[in-house]
C-alpha cells in the first residue's frame, strides 16, 4: 500500500501554492514532509484529506482515490491547535471519535488509555480551557488517532512541546508505526525528522525538490558535516566565512560546519592550521538533514518562504 500524491497543482488566485507536486509515501513508515513555512505542506495535507480540492492531479491510497475512501481512513493533527474550550477532555475525545464512526464506549476506553499514556489521566473530566497548551496539544493528538486510522497526517506535531512531552510524542509515533500505521508529518524541525523518519520529502515553493530514504539522500549528497574542535574557542567568526560553509553552529566543545556541494573538508582543516590554531578534534560525517535541506532549498528551514495564500487556504 502506498499513499500516492500524483502531480497535484493548487492555485489561490494568482498564487501557485502547489506546482505539480508528486510524492509517494510507503505504508508503515514515518515520513517527513520538510519545508519552510508557506512551502505548501498544509495545503498538500488538506488536499489529501479532501478538505481542499486540487486544481489538477489526484491523491490515492492503495490505488483508490482518497475521495472514495471513508474519512476514518485518515487521522489529522492540524497545525492550528484547537479544542472546544468549555467541553471536558473526555467528552470531546469521544465526540471526535464518534464523528469517525467509533462507538462511544470503545472511544471512551481508548481515550482513557491514551490519556494515561500521556500522563494526563486526571484531566479527563477537566475542561479543555483549564489545560496548558502542551497538554491541549497531546489531547489533540489523541483525537487524531483514537479511531485507529490507517494514515496519519500530522502538521507540525512537535511545535511548542517541552522535551518530556516531545519524547512522549515521539514514542507514540514509533508505536503507531509499529502497529502498521503510515504517518506523514510536516515539520521544519530537522532534529525530530532526523530522529524518526526513514524517508523524507523536501518541499519548496510548492514543488518537491528532493525526496527518498534519508540514508540514500545522505549518500547521494555532496554536502558534508565537519566537526572541528579548536583549543580556546568554540566558534571563531572566520570559520563561517570559509568558502563552501553554508551553516556553522556551536557544539559541545567543537564547531559543527555544514559544507555545501562545493565545500572541501580538507580546506577547512588547512585554513585552521594556517591560522596556527591548536586542533583538538576533526571529524567528517554524513550531512545532517538540516544540511540536506539547505543544499536543496538554499536557506535554513526556519526561514519563511511565505506564500500569502497558505494562510488563506
Amino acid at each position, binding site marked *: 500500500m502506498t499513499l500516492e500524491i500524483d502531480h497535484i497543482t493548487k492555485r*489561490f*488566485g494568482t498564487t501557485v501554492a502547489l506546482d505539480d507536486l508528486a510524492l509517494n509515501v510507503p505504508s508503515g513508515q514515518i515520513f517527513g514532509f520538510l519545508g519552510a513555512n508557506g512551502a505548501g505542506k498544509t495545503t498538500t495535507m*488538506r488536499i489529501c*484529506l*479532501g*478538505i*481542499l*480540492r486540487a486544481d489538477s492531479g489526484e491523491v490515492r491510497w492503495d490505488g483508490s*482515490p482518497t*475521495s*472514495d475512501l471513508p*474519512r476514518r481512513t*485518515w487521522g*489529522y493533527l*492540524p*497545525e*492550528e*491547535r*484547537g*479544542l*472546544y*474550550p468549555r*467541553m471536558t477532555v473526555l467528552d470531546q475525545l469521544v*465526540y*471526535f471519535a*464518534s*464523528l*469517525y*464512526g467509533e462507538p462511544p464506549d470503545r472511544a471512551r476506553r481508548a481515550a482513557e488509555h491514551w490519556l494515561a499514556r500521556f500522563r494526563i489521566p486526571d484531566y479527563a473530566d477537566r475542561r479543555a480551557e483549564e489545560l496548558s497548551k502542551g497538554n491541549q496539544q497531546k489531547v*489533540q493528538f489523541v*483525537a*487524531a488517532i483514537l479511531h485507529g486510522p490507517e494514515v496519519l497526517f500530522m502538521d507540525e506535531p512537535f511545535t511548542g512541546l517541552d522535551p518530556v512531552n516531545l519524547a512522549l510524542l515521539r514514542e507514540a509515533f514509533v508505536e503507531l508505526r509499529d502497529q502498521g500505521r503510515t504517518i506523514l508529518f510536516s515539520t521544519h524541525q530537522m532534529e525530530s525528522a532526523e530522529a524518526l523518519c526513514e524517508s523524507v520529502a523536501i518541499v519548496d515553493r510548492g514543488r518537491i525538490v528532493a525526496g527518498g530514504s534519508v540514508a540514500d539522500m545522505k549518500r547521494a549528497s555532496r554536502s558534508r558535516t565537519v566537526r572541528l574542535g579548536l583549543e580556546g574557542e568554540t566558534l571563531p567568526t572566520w570559520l563561517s566565512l570559509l568558502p563552501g560553509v553554508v551553516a556553522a553552529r556551536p557544539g559541545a566543545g567543537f564547531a559543527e560546519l555544514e559544507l555545501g556541494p562545493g565545500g572541501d573538508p580538507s580546506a577547512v582543516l588547512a585554513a585552521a592550521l594556517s591560522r596556527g590554531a591548536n586542533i583538538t578534534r576533526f571529524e567528517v560525517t554524513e550531512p545532517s538533514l538540516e544540511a540536506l535541506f539547505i543544499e536543496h532549498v538554499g536557506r535554513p528551514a526556519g526561514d519563511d518562504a511565505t506564500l500569502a495564500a497558505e*494562510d*488563506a*487556504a
Partner: protein
Amino acid sequence: MVRRDPLLPNAGIVARREYRDRTRSPLFVASTIVLMGLALVVAISPIAIRYLDRQTVTRIAVVADDAQLASVAVGVADSLLNIPPTGSDPAKWERPFDIARASERSAAQADLAAGRVSGVMDVARLPSGQLDVTYRTNGPPNPVRSQLVGFAALALGILDWTSSLPKDSQLRPFQTPVFTPVSIAAPGDGDQPVDPQELASRSFLGIVFVVLIFITVVIYGMWVATGVAAEKSSRVMELMISAASPRQLLTGKVVGIGLAGLTQYVAIALPALGVLAVQDRIAEAVLGPTWAAGAPLVGLTPNLLGAYGLFFLLGFTLFALIYAAMGSFVSRPDDLQTLSLPLSLVAMAGYLSAIVALSGGGGRWTTLASFVPPFSPFVMLARVMTGSVAPWELALSVALLLVAIAVVAVVAVRLYAAGVLLYGQRPGVRAFIAAARRAG
C-alpha cells in the same frame, strides 16, 4: 472528485452536541423561564381583562327637576349605555354602567367631586319647555361616553316631545330604530366572521408572536453564527472539517440549535396550552358561573400556536443557514456584529411589515411580503393572527419558504466550506463570492 458523505449519523452527532451545549447554558434556562411566564400571562390575559372589566362599573348619577323626567332619563341612558353583547342572557349579564337618580343636585355634585360617581347627567326644563341636559365629569370627559350621553339626551328630548302630543294625534308614537352593524370585509376564520373583541385580542397576540419570532430568529440565528465563528477562532474547526463534511457540520449545527429553540418553544407553549385547556374552569372560578354570558374568551388557540411553531421553524432555518455562512467568514466572533447587520436589517424589515399588517395596513405590500421569503415568516404569521388568510395562501407561502430554504442551503454549504478555512481576511462581499467560486 468530491466526496459525498451521507448526512447521518454525523449531522445527528453534531446536532446532539449543539443541542446539549445550548440547553445546558444558564442563559437558555433563564430566557425559557421568562418567556414561559410571558406566555402564561398572554394565555390568561382574556380572563384577567374580563375580570378587571367586570370589576369596573361606571356610576352615573341623574338629577332632574321632577321624578318622572328623572325616571325617563335613567331609563333612556340605561338602554343606550348598557347594551348586552350578542347572545348573552340579559338577566345574567352584568351591566357596565350603574345609572341611578340622585335626589339632590348638591349631593350629586359632592359625589362627583369625591369620585363616588364618574358623571352627573343634570336634566332641567327651561321656561320655554325645552330640556336642558348637562353632563358633568370630574376631569377630561370620556369622548365615547359623552357621545352616548349626548344620544341619551336626544332620545330623552324625542320621548319628552312625543309625550306632549295630544292624545288624539294621528302621529304614531316614537319608536327606536333597529340598528345592526354589517361589514362586507370583516376578517374571518374560514366562513366564520371574527368577533371584534376576538380580533382585538388576536392583534395583541399577533404583536407578541411577531416580536417573539423576530427575537428568536435573530437570537438563535446569531447563536449559529457565533457558534461557527467560535469554532473557527478556537481553531477546533480544523479538526471538525477533517472529521465531517461541511454539509454534515452545517446541518448538524442548524438542526441542533433549531431543536434547542423548539425545546424552548415547547417549554413555553405547553403551560400556555394547559391554561387554554382549563380556561373555562378558570373563568368560572374567577368570574363566577355567569362568565359565559359575555364575549367569548379568545386568546391563544392551538391553531395559532401551531402557526407560530411552523413559521418559527421555517424562518429560523432560512436565517440560520445564512447566519452560519456568515459566521464561517469571520476570524473572530467580534467581527460578526458588522457582517450580520444587513441580515438583521432584512429581518427587521420583515418584522416591521408584520407589525403594519397587524394594524390592518400595508395593503399590497403586506400581501406580497407574506409570500416572499425572507419576509414571509413574519408577515404571513401576522396575517394568520388577524384571521385574513385563505388556506391556499398559507400553503403557497409555506411552499415558497421551503423552496427558498433548499436553495439557500446549497449556497450556504458552499460558502461555509470555503469560509471556515479563510483566516486573516477581512470579511466582505468579494471574499464571499471568491470563496464560493473556489469551493465550487
